[in-house]
């Protein structure tokens, strides 16, 4: 693995300061720096993942450490020095691990769910254009219908689709990002904009979300 880097001699250097790490990882990277970084990431990843990965933890962690090192080598020059380099590297590796874990979990769960009944389905309400007359509705259901109508009017199709996937289908944001050919930041921003639209429209309509919640 990672045998494409050039060795800088057989002596095992020690890496502790940020400057030493940066010097060790700049091209051509030092084999000792790579090995020490790998050991560091593996130890940290095991501690942060053992609660979530019951089977094949060692293999999973090894794969993630290797993928993370490639990412770290690719973007170590974006490290701004506001923390220890190893903390920054660990952060990159943790995100890699959890992104991978979420994708794996979702794949497994969605395969299982294909044959299962969705218990929430019976409670789901379609937004309807032809609503029943007010005398047929309770106050609560009128409010619910009104908020739903606002959402339908204010939110784009993409926002509605993303909210459907995230909140109703319970698809992780990492997976939604992939499904929408996007990234997590963009999906978060899209949902934030949807919340903001909802907030502004409710203000215009004189609707207080907290008051509505109390009534529900």
């Amino acid at each position, binding site marked *: 693995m990672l045998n494409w880097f050039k060795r800088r001699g057989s002596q095992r250097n020690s890496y502790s300061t940020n400057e030493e790490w940066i010097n060790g990882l700049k091209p051509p990277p030092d084999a000792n720096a790579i090995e020490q970084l790998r050991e560091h990431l593996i130890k940290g990843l*095991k501690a942060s993942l053992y609660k979530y990965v019951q089977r094949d933890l060692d293999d999973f962690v090894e794969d993630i450490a290797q993928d993370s090192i490639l990412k770290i080598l690719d973007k170590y020059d974006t490290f701004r020095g506001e923390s220890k380099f190893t903390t920054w590297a660990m*952060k990159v590796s943790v*995100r890699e691990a959890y992104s991978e874990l979420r994708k794996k979990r979702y794949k497994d769960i969605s395969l299982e769910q294909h044959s299962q009944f969705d218990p*929430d389905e019976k409670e789901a309400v379609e937004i309807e254009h032809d609503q029943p007359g007010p005398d047929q509705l309770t106050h609560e259901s009128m409010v619910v219908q009104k908020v*739903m109508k606002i959402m339908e009017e204010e939110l784009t199709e993409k926002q509605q689709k993303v909210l459907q996937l995230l*909140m*109703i289908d319970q698809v992780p944001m990492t997976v939604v990002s992939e499904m929408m050919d996007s990234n*997590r930041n963009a999906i978060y921003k899209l949902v934030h904009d949807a919340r903001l639209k909802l*907030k502004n429209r409710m203000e215009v309509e004189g609707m207080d979300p907290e008051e509505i919640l109390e009534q*529900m």
Partner: protein
Amino acid sequence: MKLNKKVLKKLLSMVPMTHEGEIGCDECFDELNEFAEMELLGKSPEKAMPLVREHLDKCGECRQEYQALLDAMKVLDFK
């Protein structure tokens, strides 16, 4: 689009704390290493970086990764 009461409640509960100045996952990620070190050093990062704290409160995936980073740093004897 389909909604149920549970989802609607969750959405409505997030509306009051929504504002224009929120940061996204990338900006949060950029600051996370510094935020984590401050926390482990007892330096109240939520005061220095309130928008990061706010994002972590709102974003489950970033919060999970932050907790994992802290777990890793603790075993690596961060000081």
